[in-house]
C-alpha cells in the first residue's frame, strides 16, 4: 500500500512507488480526499489535493483510481450548482451543513431521479462514437441526448423499452467489432483535461447576440468565439458577465465562478431562478449550470473548475447546442497555477507565474469553436473569460497572454466606471476581430447598412477622442462650431447609445433591430445638424431645443416592441431643426 510521505499545503508526496500514472485521480488519506498526480520521478510522486489537507499525516494511505480526473456527463447537470470537481453543492450541504467539510463523497449526478427516456435506436443498428441512442427532457427547455462515448462503436444487440430510467440504468447494449459487449447508461465519463473530439471545425459566421449595444454593434463576438474582459476591481467584470449570461442567445450557459465571491454565486443562484428567459418563457436556471469555487475554497480545485466547466460545455455542444461559458475569473485560475507551481519549487518565469502559463491559457481558449460533432450536429462553445489584472495594469502576464489567444478584447475602464458609465467597456482600447466573419450575417439579417452605420458611429467616437485632447488643454469654447457639434453628437452616442442600464426593463436587453434604428436616428440627427451649423447657426441654439436630450432618452422612451416610434422621432428632429433655421 502506498502511504503519504510529506504534506505541504495542498501538495502531498508519496515515496518510492511506480503505481501511479500522470494526471491520475487518487484518494488521499483515511478521509479519502480527492487528489491528482501532477509529477512523477523515480523517487517520489507528487499529488495535488483538491481539498483542505488539515489533519493529514504521513503514513496515511494513498489509493489510485486508475483513471484521470473525469467529469460525469449525463442528465442532471443543468440547473445544478457544482464545486470545482463536479460535486453538487446542494448534496454537500445536506451532508455537512452550511460549512463545507472535506472528504464529502457524493456522486455528481442525482442517481435516484428518473427521466422520461426515449430510445432512438433499435436492435441491429450500427453505432459509432457520438451517435445518439436515447433522449430525455432534462429540463423543460433542454432535451438531453445520450451519445455513444467517442471511443466506442458497435452494433446494438439490446435496447430497453421507452420509459422511466435513472442515470445509471442500462438502456442499450452494443457489441463492438472485437466482440466486447458494452452497456450504455444515461451517463458517461470524460477526462476534464482532454478536449472532446468532433468531426470538423466550421467557419465562424454567426454572432452571439447579447442585447448589449456596445458589444453587438461595436465589438461583436461570434458563436464559437473567444473574448476576454479585463478590468480592475469595481469596473463591472462580474456585472458584464451576469448580463451576458442572462441575455445572450446561447442555448446553455456554463457559469464558472473561479476564485470569486461567495455572495456573487448566491446572487446568480437567486437571480437566475427568478428571471424568465425571454425566448423560452421558463426560468433561466433551466438552461444554466453553475460551477462555484469561491475564493476561500481549496486552491487546487480552482484549477480544476475551469476544466470541469469546459468539459460540460463540450458535452452539450456535441448534442448540437450552442454554449456560452462565462469564466469569472481566469486570473484566479492562473494564480492557482502559480501557487501550486511555487509549492513544487518550479523555476518561475514572469512575476512568479510558471513558464507554462501561456500554453495552459491557449489550450483553454482553443477548446472554444463552432464545430460539426461526431454525429453531424452543429454546435458551438463560446468562451468569455474575465481577467483581473493585478494593480489594474494590463501589461501583467495573465492579461498579455490572454490577449494573444482571444479575438475579442473588451477592456473595462476605471474612469468610465467612476462616472458610473456602464458597461464600462472602453471603446478606444477594445477590439473585435469578428467583424469580417460576421459581415454576411449582419447584411442578411439586420440591414445592409448596419456595418456602414457602425463605422460612422466609430468614426464619431474616434474624432471626439482627438478633439478631447485639444479640449483638455484649452477648453471647448474655442473650438469651431462644427467641431463643437462633433463633441455634442459624440455625447449623444456615449450616453444615449453606449451606456446601457441593466436595471431598466427595456434597456437591459435591446434587440439588434432597435440597435440599428438607434444608430440611424443618431446619424440622421448628425447629418441634419451639420447642415444647420453650416448655415451659420451656433450649436448652442440646437442644444437649447433639447433635441439632443430627447434622442439620448430614446432608449427609455421607445419600448423594444414599438419600432414605429422611431419614425415619429425622426419627424420631430426635422421639425425642431427647421424651426431654428426659420427663426434665424
Amino acid at each position, binding site marked *: 500500500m502506498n502511504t503519504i510521505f510529506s504534506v505541504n499545503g495542498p501538495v502531498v508526496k508519496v515515496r518510492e512507488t511506480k503505481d501511479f500514472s500522470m494526471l491520475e485521480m487518487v484518494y488521499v488519506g483515511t478521509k479519502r480526499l480527492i487528489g491528482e498526480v501532477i509529477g512523477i520521478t523515480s523517487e517520489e510522486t507528487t499529488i495535488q489535493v483538491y481539498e483542505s489537507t488539515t*489533519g493529514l499525516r504521513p503514513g496515511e494511505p494513498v489509493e489510485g483510481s486508475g483513471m484521470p480526473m473525469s467529469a460525469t456527463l449525463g442528465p442532471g447537470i443543468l440547473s445544478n450548482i457544482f464545486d470545482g470537481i463536479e460535486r453538487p*453543492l446542494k448534496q454537500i*450541504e445536506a451532508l455537512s451543513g452550511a460549512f463545507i467539510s472535506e472528504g464529502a463523497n457524493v456522486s455528481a449526478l442525482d442517481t435516484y431521479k428518473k427521466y422520461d427516456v426515449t430510445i432512438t435506436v433499435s436492435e441491429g443498428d450500427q453505432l459509432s462514437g457520438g451517435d445518439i441512442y436515447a433522449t430525455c427532457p432534462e429540463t423543460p427547455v433542454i432535451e438531453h441526448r445520450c451519445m455513444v462515448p467517442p471511443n466506442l462503436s458497435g452494433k446494438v444487440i439490446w435496447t430497453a423499452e421507452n420509459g422511466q430510467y435513472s442515470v445509471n440504468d442500462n438502456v442499450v447494449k452494443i457489441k463492438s467489432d472485437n466482440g466486447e459487449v458494452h452497456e450504455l447508461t444515461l451517463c458517461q465519463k470524460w477526462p476534464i483535461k482532454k478536449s472532446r473530439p468532433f468531426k470538423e471545425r466550421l467557419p465562424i459566421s454567426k454572432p452571439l447576440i447579447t442585447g448589449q449595444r456596445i458589444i453587438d454593434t461595436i465589438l461583436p463576438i461570434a458563436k464559437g468565439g473567444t473574448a476576454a474582459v479585463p478590468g*480592475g476591481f469595481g469596473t463591472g467584470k462580474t456585472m458584464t458577465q451576469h448580463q451576458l449570461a442572462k441575455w445572450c442567445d446561447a442555448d446553455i450557459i456554463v457559469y464558472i465562478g473561479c476564485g470569486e*465571491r461567495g455572495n456573487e454565486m448566491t446572487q446568480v443562484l437567486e437571480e437566475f431562478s427568478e428571471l424568465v428567459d425571454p425566448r423560452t418563457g421558463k426560468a433561466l436556471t433551466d438552461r444554466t449550470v453553475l460551477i462555484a469555487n469561491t*475564493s476561500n475554497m481549496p486552491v487546487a480545485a480552482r484549477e480544476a473548475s475551469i476544466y470541469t466547466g469546459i468539459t460540460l460545455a463540450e458535452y452539450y455542444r456535441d448534442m448540437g447546442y450552442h454554449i456560452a461559458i462565462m469564466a469569472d475569473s481566469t486570473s484566479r485560475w492562473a494564480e492557482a497555477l502559480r501557487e501550486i507551481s511555487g509549492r513544487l519549487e518550479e523555476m518561475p518565469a514572469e512575476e512568479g507565474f510558471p513558464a507554462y502559463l501561456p500554453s495552459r491559457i491557449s489550450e483553454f481558449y482553443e477548446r472554444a469553436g463552432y464545430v460539426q460533432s461526431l454525429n453531424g450536429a452543429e454546435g458551438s462553445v463560446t468562451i468569455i473569460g474575465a481577467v483581473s489584472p493585478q494593480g489594474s495594469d494590463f501589461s501583467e502576464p495573465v492579461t498579455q497572454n490572454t490577449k494573444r489567444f482571444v479575438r475579442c478584447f473588451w477592456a473595462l475602464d476605471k474612469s468610465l466606471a*467612476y462616472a458610473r458609465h456602464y458597461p464600462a467597456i472602453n471603446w478606444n482600447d477594445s477590439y473585435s476581430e469578428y467583424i469580417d466573419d460576421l459581415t454576411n450575417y449582419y447584411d442578411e439579417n439586420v440591414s445592409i447598412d448596419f456595418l456602414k452605420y457602425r463605422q460612422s458611429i466609430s468614426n464619431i467616437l474616434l474624432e471626439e477622442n482627438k478633439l478631447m485632447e485639444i479640449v*483638455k488643454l484649452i477648453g471647448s469654447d474655442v473650438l469651431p462650431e462644427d467641431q463643437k457639434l462633433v463633441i455634442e453628437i459624440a455625447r449623444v452616442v456615449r450616453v444615449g447609445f453606449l451606456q446601457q442600464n441593466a436595471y431598466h426593463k427595456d434597456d437591459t436587453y435591446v434587440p439588434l433591430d432597435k440597435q440599428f434604428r438607434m444608430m440611424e436616428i443618431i446619424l440622421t440627427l448628425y447629418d441634419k445638424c451639420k447642415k444647420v451649423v453650416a448655415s451659420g447657426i451656433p450649436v448652442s441654439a440646437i442644444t437649447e431645443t433639447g433635441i439632443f436630450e430627447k434622442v439620448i432618452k430614446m432608449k427609455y422612451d421607445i419600448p423594444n416592441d414599438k419600432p414605429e416610434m422611431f419614425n415619429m422621432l425622426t419627424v420631430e428632429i426635422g421639425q425642431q431643426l427647421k424651426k431654428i433655421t426659420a427663426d434665424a
Partner: protein
Amino acid sequence: MSLQYIGLSEINGPLVVLDNVEGVSYDEVTEIRLDDSTKRIGRVVEISGRKAVLQVFEGTNGLSLKNTKTRFMGKPMEMPLSPEILGRIFNGAGRPIDGLGEIFAEKTADINGKPLNPVSRAYPRNYIHTGISSIDALMTLIRGQKLPIFSGSGLSHNKLAVQIVRQAKIAENSGQDFAVVFAAMGVKNDVADYFRRSFEESGVLQKVVMFLNLSNDPIIERILTPRCALTAAEYLAFEKNMHILVILTDMTSYAEAVREFSSSKGEIPGRKGFPGYLYSDLASLYERAGIIKGSEGSVTQIPILTMPNDDITHPVPDLTGYITEGQIVLDRGLDQTGVYPPISVLPSLSRLMKDGIGEGYTRSDHADVSNQLFACYAKVMDARALASVIGEDELSELDKSYMNFGKMFEKYFITQRPDENRSIDETLDLGWKLLSLLPKAALDRVNEKLLEEKYDPHAAELFE
C-alpha cells in the same frame, strides 16, 4: 498522555524543525515548553517523513536546540467559545489578557473555519444605516457585506470606524442583539486604546469582543488574530443569532506578517515579496462574512487597511478590492482641506448596494440620486483638471457650475461632524438640493418625473 520531544534540530526565524517525530498531522497545534516552564504555541506547517516544521507564534527568542520539550496536541488550533466572550479582551492568539480568568468554554472551534457553501448563503439585502451621508447615499453598507476602508497613514480611518460603530443601526426592527468584534493587528497601543475608550464612551463596551495584537507583539501571532476574531464572530452570529460587526485593523500589517512568515519558510516571493497565495489567504478571512439561510444572525466586516505610500495598486489593497464587496477610499487631499470624513467618492463603491436600496429599504429615488451624484462629481473632476490648465475664469458656464457644485458637495454633503447622525431622508434631500445647483439638462441619470418633482433651484441658493 502524549509523547514529548526533547530538543529541536533547527531554528530559523519563527520556524523550528523537529526530527524523528511520529504520527504528526498537517496544521496540528503544538505546545513548546521551555526550561523556565513558560509555554509557547506552535503549528505544523510542513511535514516530510519524520521531519516536522513548526511555526512558533510567540517567536523563537530564547529557544535553543536543547532547552525545549514539544508536545503535539493532535488537533488544529482551536478557540474556546461561550457567550461570556462579550466584553472580554484577548491577545492575538485568543487568550484572555484582561485578568478576568479563562473562558468557561461552551464549545471549541477550529480557528481556520470552513468555507461557507454558496448554496447555504442568503444574499445580503438589508441596509445598515450609518448616519454618514457619503456612505449611506453612495456606498451603502449592507448587512452581511465586507466593505473595507482603504486609508493611508495619518488619515482619520479610526475616527470613521468608531463613528460607524456608534451610529450603525445594525439590528434595527428585528429586536435582535448586535455586537462588535474588534481585532487589532500590529496597531499602536494608543490606537487600540482609542477604540477601547470610544467603545466605553458610547456604552457598547459590554457588547465588544477585543483581540489585540499590538505592534510590539509577536508577528506570527498576528496571523492568528483575525482568524480568532472571525471564529468568535461566526459563533455569535450563527449559533447565538446576533448581528456582528467585525472591525479588522490593520490588514496591511497582517499581510506583512504573512510575508515575513513566507520568506522565513523560503517560499518563492510574488509581487513586492508577498507570497503567491496572499489572495487565497486574504480570501479565507474576508469570505467569512455573510448570512446563512435559516440563521438569524449575520457577520458584517469592515476591514481597515493603510495603503503604503497611498498607492491603491499595492498588492494588499489591490487583492483586497478583488475579494471584498466594494471599498471606501479615503483621500489625503480632502483630509488636508479639512474635510471629515475624507471619503474619496469616485473610487469608492458598494457592490451589494443595488439590491439593498430603493423602495422598501431606503427610498425609491435613492438609486437615481446616487447615480446622478456620482456622474456629476466625475464631471467636477474634469472641470477641475481643465481649470488647472486654463484657469477658472476661462471655463464655460456649465463647467463653472460644476466647479461650484463640487465645492458645495464637499462642504455640505461629504463633510459632517464626527457625532452627526443624518437620517437617510436628510441625506437624499441634501443630494437633491445640491443637484439643483446644476442646470436641469445636465441631470441625465434621473427619471424625468422625479426631476420635475425634486429639482428646486431656489433651495440650492441657500448654499454658500
